[in-house]
């Protein structure tokens, strides 16, 4: 687009927003929207199979590519979790699971789920698909870079998966990869495994940066006429803030990966203190392992919100649409998202209370951690008030939203336990921590992802998913996930440590044996019940009920394309013009219970809409 500016002398019709206000009176005036500032986007249209479906520059196809790749890694992570649970519930039942393998499964499960599954799915998958559609752009602003971004991610996944097949297997250092143990002999995969992990993470960061620049600039600079920042769906706010966090947090991960790679391959001592190994002093010395922890968690804590904020945003939209009511406190929700994002950079050391850092540091970080609970609680209240006396459609999407609220509150409350230094120290490295973070950033975002798939599947494919199967899927997943993680709180309280391969005959955890077996059975059932979901998707692709246009009667732009599913370029001849926020449901005085974002005020003259 930019290139046309000078040649055609296209005037940039930048105007003060004030110049438009104060014009009211006739019906012609109230429909006024400022003229377009930008020329039409120059798009590359693929013609061959390769440019249309493989090296495709259409954000929607890239989004689906991201989604499928992330789901593939997620399934690998799921299988790894089964193997771990088998060992924990029924020790030595499977001879293949040795202690080394167990640690490799733990590590790969954690890293895959957090980075390659959830981050890629929310930002790469939903971000790519929804951002251009929801802000009314024809595509991402840099389609080529966007395409390269996906393929970098794909290579990163390949490198990660390759580490399963190298001598020594993948790294078994725990997903936090703490040095010195991550790169010393004795840790599984301390040679090729860890190197491939670090390389893969670096590639992921590079690829993500390319995508992230696209998401941010599309949202900031390529919105359609009338689309102000405060008229964007909360989905976009969530993805936008999460991307901004990622742009500032991933550098710390990249730097720690580079430094650890050098420690491993060149023998530098950035993170390596003087170490005795089998009575011999290693050549390392003088480095600081805590430095790695600071760098890692400076990335790691925002990473939690990189996963959570898109989930917050998406769930707000889903609740609003399926409760037929505007989201309560839209601006509060926006500022809460932004506030949580900003605060998330000042809480990282609450992951390090037992690392030996200065205790005053713990005091500071406990305070900031508890402050972050305030905007988060605001959001939960707003979701509940949105549901209060709403016209709720109790469909699969809504069930998943309700499931999200419950699991998120549960995980959030245990977070307050762990945020306090004094309470955290006895609980750290127990199953209480496992229960906490799986509830809050495992199950809760997954609930949103599944709800979002049921919600947007008709948009992507043009067909509805089966409701009946969807409800079965929900109850299996929700009750099953609760049976997995709720007992873990108890395990944590009685002191069962995390990351232990086996408890053997430790007398104080004998009461945990039955519970561990129960959890394992539940985990297997929940895992297998996802086959219902996959079956539902595969079957509905061909025989699902045709969705038609806007099956949920939603207001936001993505449902208002001329073709469903949307074609390349999204909007046909003319870009849409926006007159309102996407939450005008059940407006008093309106004929229908929803007013789409493109409906001009003159068409709903008697409706008492909120001024946005």
């Amino acid at each position: 687009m930019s290139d046309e500016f000078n040649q055609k002398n296209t005037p940039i019709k930048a105007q003060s927003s004030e110049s438009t206000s104060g014009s009211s009176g006739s019906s012609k005036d109230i429909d006024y929207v400022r003229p377009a500032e930008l020329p039409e986007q120059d798009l590359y249209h693929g013609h061959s199979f390769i440019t249309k479906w493989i090296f495709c520059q259409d954000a929607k196809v890239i989004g689906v590519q991201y989604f499928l790749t992330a789901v593939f890694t997620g399934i690998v992570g799921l299988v790894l979790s089964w193997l771990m649970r088998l060992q924990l519930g029924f020790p030595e039942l499977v001879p293949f699971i040795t202690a080394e393998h167990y640690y490799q499964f733990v590590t790969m499960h954690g890293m895959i789920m957090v980075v390659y599954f959830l981050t890629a799915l929310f930002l790469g998958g939903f971000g790519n698909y929804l951002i251009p559609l929801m802000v009314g752009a024809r595509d991402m602003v840099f389609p080529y870079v966007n395409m390269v971004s996906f393929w970098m991610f794909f290579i990163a996944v390949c490198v990660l998966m390759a580490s399963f097949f190298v001598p020594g297997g993948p790294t078994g250092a725990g997903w936090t990869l703490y040095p010195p143990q991550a790169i010393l002999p004795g840790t599984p995969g301390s040679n090729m495994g860890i190197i491939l992990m670090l390389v893969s993470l670096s590639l992921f960061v590079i690829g993500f940066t390319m995508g992230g620049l696209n998401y941010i600039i599309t949202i900031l600079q390529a919105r359609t006429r009338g689309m102000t920042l405060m008229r964007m769906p909360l989905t976009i706010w969530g993805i936008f803030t999460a991307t901004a966090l990622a742009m500032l947090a991933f550098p710390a991960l990249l730097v720690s990966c580079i430094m650890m790679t050098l420690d491993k391959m060149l023998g530098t001592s950035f993170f390596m203190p003087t170490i005795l190994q089998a009575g011999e002093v290693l050549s390392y010395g003088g480095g600081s392992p805590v430095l790695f922890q600071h760098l890692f968690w400076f990335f790691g804590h925002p990473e939690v919100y990189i996963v959570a904020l898109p989930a917050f945003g998406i769930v707000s939209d889903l609740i609003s649409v399926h409760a037929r009511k505007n989201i309560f406190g839209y601006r509060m929700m926006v500022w809460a998202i932004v506030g949580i994002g900003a605060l998330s950079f000042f809480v990282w050391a609450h992951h390090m209370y037992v690392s030996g850092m200065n205790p005053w540091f713990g005091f500071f970080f406990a305070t900031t951690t508890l402050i972050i609970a305030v905007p988060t609680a605001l959001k939960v209240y707003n979701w509940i008030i949105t549901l209060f006396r709403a016209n709720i459609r109790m469909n699969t999407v809504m069930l998943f939203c309700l499931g999200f609220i419950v699991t998120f509150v549960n995980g959030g409350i245990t977070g307050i336990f762990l945020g306090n230094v004094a309470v955290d120290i006895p609980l750290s490295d127990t199953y209480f921590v496992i229960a906490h973070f799986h509830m809050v950033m495992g199950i809760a975002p997954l609930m949103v992802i599944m709800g979002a798939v049921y919600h947007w599947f008709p948009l992507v494919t043009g067909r509805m998913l089966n409701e009946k199967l969807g409800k079965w899927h929900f109850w299996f997943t929700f009750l099953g996930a609760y049976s997995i993680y709720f007992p873990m709180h108890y395990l944590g309280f009685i002191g069962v440590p995390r990351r232990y391969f086996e408890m053997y005959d430790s007398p104080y955890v004998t009461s945990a044996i039955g519970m561990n077996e129960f959890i394992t059975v539940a985990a297997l059932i929940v895992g297998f019940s996802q086959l219902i979901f996959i079956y539902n998707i595969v079957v509905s692709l061909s025989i699902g009920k045709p969705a038609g246009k806007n099956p949920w009667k939603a207001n936001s732009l993505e449902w208002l394309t001329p073709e469903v599913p949307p074609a390349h370029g999204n909007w046909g001849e003319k870009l849409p013009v926006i007159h309102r926020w996407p939450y005008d449901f059940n407006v008093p005085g309106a004929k229908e219970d929803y007013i789409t974002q493109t409906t001009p005020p003159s068409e709903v003259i008697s409706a008492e809409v909120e001024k946005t």
Partner: protein
Amino acid sequence: MSDNSLNNLPGGFKGMSQDMGSDQTAFKGVQWGKVMMWIFLLSDTFIFSCFLISYMKGRASTVVDWPNTSEVFSLHVNGVPVPLLLIAIMTFVLITSSGTMALAVKYGYEKNRKMCGWLILATAIGGLTFVGMQVFEWSKLIHEGVRPWENPFGAKQFGSFFFMITGFHGTHVSIGVIFLFIYARKVFRGDFDNGKRGFFTTMKSDYVAIEILGLYWHFVDLVWVFIFAFFYLW
């Protein structure tokens, strides 16, 4: 931007809040590519900050003495050690290349193809000289026994951090030099005048691209100032 309507926008915080509250674009009249470069540079700033903070932490916590930088980095001229000589020249060259880059942007917007091209070429040669002198400095240190994993003059972290951070910066400069040469060729060929479509991106070329490359180049220079201060003056 030659368009005058931009000048009518209110300035200051009031203007900023109005821009943020308006539709379509948050940064009025700023091309997508330019915003992209700014945000990328913000991200890159965090990378260099992490490197430099790690360096400070490493240097502050080492038990072995840090080498005396004015001795380690000195050049012998006629047998007399002159501290910071090479580094002063390197810094001068790099800062000068920033100046030529700024002029290239100016001539680019004036559609002065020849001047723009020569100035980009001058910038590229400045960058190449810088990288060359860095190679010289590296080989001198390596010749004296400094390695990423050891250092005869004191703390071994000196070698590790020095090679890593200057190497990372040098990579940035080298990438910049490659792009400068590519852009010099594009300018001389007239791509930016006739809007030839890019080989990879298939998007039309525009003189804005030179300003975007300039942003990157100035950033690389700015980072060098910090590296210079932290490694050579501390």
